[in-house]
């Protein structure tokens, strides 16, 4: 069965006339072949985006994306959908800005509505002392041509009336750094859109196929062992997010990565209440980000659970921290009931920044270490990582994310928290 050709107003009309059966699955089941030019391990956002760009930009025909569970089962379906590029370091803000520009046109590029909503991202300052740091970050962004606005209480009140920044709080709000082009993107649609677009270009997406080992000889990898049999591959990319540590263990290469849990939760849906994304980071007070999904639920998240874990269950006291900090910001949501809570496994690096580089062999690549910034970087990561895998040379945008930076001391420690993944 072939997939539906394309989505448009014209297609809606044709579907109406054709009746039932016009809409087909987004991508169709393909059988695993014996050999591929490129095997991508992990059908999450980064794996699928890289496969899409390899096929579209570099014309590579034989690509497989192998997925242990289901497309979008991992962090691409577990994040809180926020996209932004409000970073201090040039290495970071140029990369995330590249992603943000791609988000703006992604629906058209994929012919799939990913519901990019530039509703703004509001980074709140809880004390006047935070302002200089925010101003510095905002100025660094503006020098790079990225929009950033330092708002006082009056401007913030006009921008987000529901927040009522002058309201008496335990930790009064002092102002905010706002990025208006930041916002949200529907996360599931990103996984499905990339999978559909990649499959349409001939990429084989194989679900329920776990990679268990890499066969190599004379310093070159020749293929991967999977639960569906051996697959030959000329080049291999690992984009396994929360299980990147396992890839290191499998290849016998220690990585500067620990796996931590990050949880999120959503309330019952209510009418439109919050017009932007609120982020409040205050050590000791708790950390929270709150936004309202298109369905109406208030989505909340906070800091990592705080110790290595693969359980995908959040700890209860962290949930309480997140709710307390969110209710402190928006007392009007205190009566809402939480209907779902979940957690994702995060591949936390020692400096909080990702790794896109070769791993052990000349033809094995790693796209990992996204910490909790993986979702917003998907389009930039896919394009740049595809260029690295296709040509063997990393584009300038991802050169700073090389694995050797830990050894040479070129860390990108945006938070300055030291080599402790839990503090990033």
């Amino acid at each position, binding site marked *: 069965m072939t997939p539906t050709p394309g989505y448009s107003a014209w297609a809606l009309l044709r579907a109406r006339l054709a009746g039932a059966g016009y809409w087909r699955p987004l991508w169709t089941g393909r059988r695993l072949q014996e050999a591929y030019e490129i095997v991508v391990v992990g059908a999450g956002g980064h794996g699928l985006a890289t496969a899409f760009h390899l096929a579209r930009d570099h014309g590579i025909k034989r690509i497989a994306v192998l997925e242990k569970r289901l497309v979008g089962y991992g962090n691409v379906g577990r994040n809180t959908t926020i996209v932004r590029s409000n970073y201090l370091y040039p290495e970071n803000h140029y990369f995330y800005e590249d992603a943000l520009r791609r988000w703006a046109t992604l629906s058209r590029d994929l012919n799939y509505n990913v519901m990019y909503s530039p509703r703004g991202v509001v980074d709140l300052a809880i004390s006047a002392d935070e302002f200089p740091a925010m101003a510095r970050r905002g100025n660094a962004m503006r020098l790079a041509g990225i929009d950033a606005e330092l708002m006082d209480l009056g401007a913030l009140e006009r921008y987000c009336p529901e927040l009522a920044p002058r309201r008496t709080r335990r930790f009064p709000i002092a102002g905010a750094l706002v990025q208006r082009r930041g916002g949200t993107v529907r996360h599931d649609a990103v996984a499905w859109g990339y999978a559909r677009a990649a499959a349409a270009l001939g990429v084989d997406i194989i679900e329920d196929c776990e990679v268990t080992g890499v066969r190599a000889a004379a310093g070159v990898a020749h293929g991967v062992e999977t639960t569906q049999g051996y697959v030959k591959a000329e080049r291999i990319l690992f984009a396994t997010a929360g299980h990147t540590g396992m890839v290191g*263990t499998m290849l016998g290469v*220690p990585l*500067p990565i620990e796996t931590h849990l990050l949880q999120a939760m959503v309330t019952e849906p209510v009418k439109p209440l919050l017009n932007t994304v609120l982020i409040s980071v205050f050590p000791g007070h708790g950390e929270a980000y709150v936004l309202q999904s298109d369905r109406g639920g208030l989505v909340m998240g906070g800091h990592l659970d705080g*110790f290595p874990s693969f*359980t995908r269950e959040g*700890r*209860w*006291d962290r949930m309480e921290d997140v709710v307390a900090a969110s209710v402190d910001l928006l007392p009007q949501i205190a009566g809402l009931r939480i209907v779902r809570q979940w957690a994702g496994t995060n591949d936390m690096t020692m400096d909080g920044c990702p790794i896109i580089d070769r791993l052990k062999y000349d033809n094995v690549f790693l796209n990992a270490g996204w910490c909790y910034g993986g979702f917003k970087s998907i389009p930039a990561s896919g394009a740049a990582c595809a260029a690295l895998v296709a040509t063997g040379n990393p584009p300038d945008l991802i050169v700073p994310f090389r694995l050797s930076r830990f050894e040479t001391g070129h860390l990108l420690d945006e938070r300055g928290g030291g080599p402790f993944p839990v503090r990033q």
Partner: protein
Amino acid sequence: MTRLTCPFCGLRALEEFEFRKTLPNAGDSPFARTYERIDSLTESAEHWQHVHGCRAWLEIRRNPSTGEVLCTRLLGGALP
């Protein structure tokens, strides 16, 4: 995993404790000790502190896939 056992205070709520770091397990060079880790699905050796209690530093071995605590000892003390 909702509670941990402190050798001094007994079984206490998880929020009284703070995870400090995982123990180096990848090599002996200063670089490996600082940055590199070998992830295991079944065992993680860590330093914790009973911050909101007796403030003792503990070495805890846990199964990170289930949360089960395999053993706990006072840092510098003998293994149980």
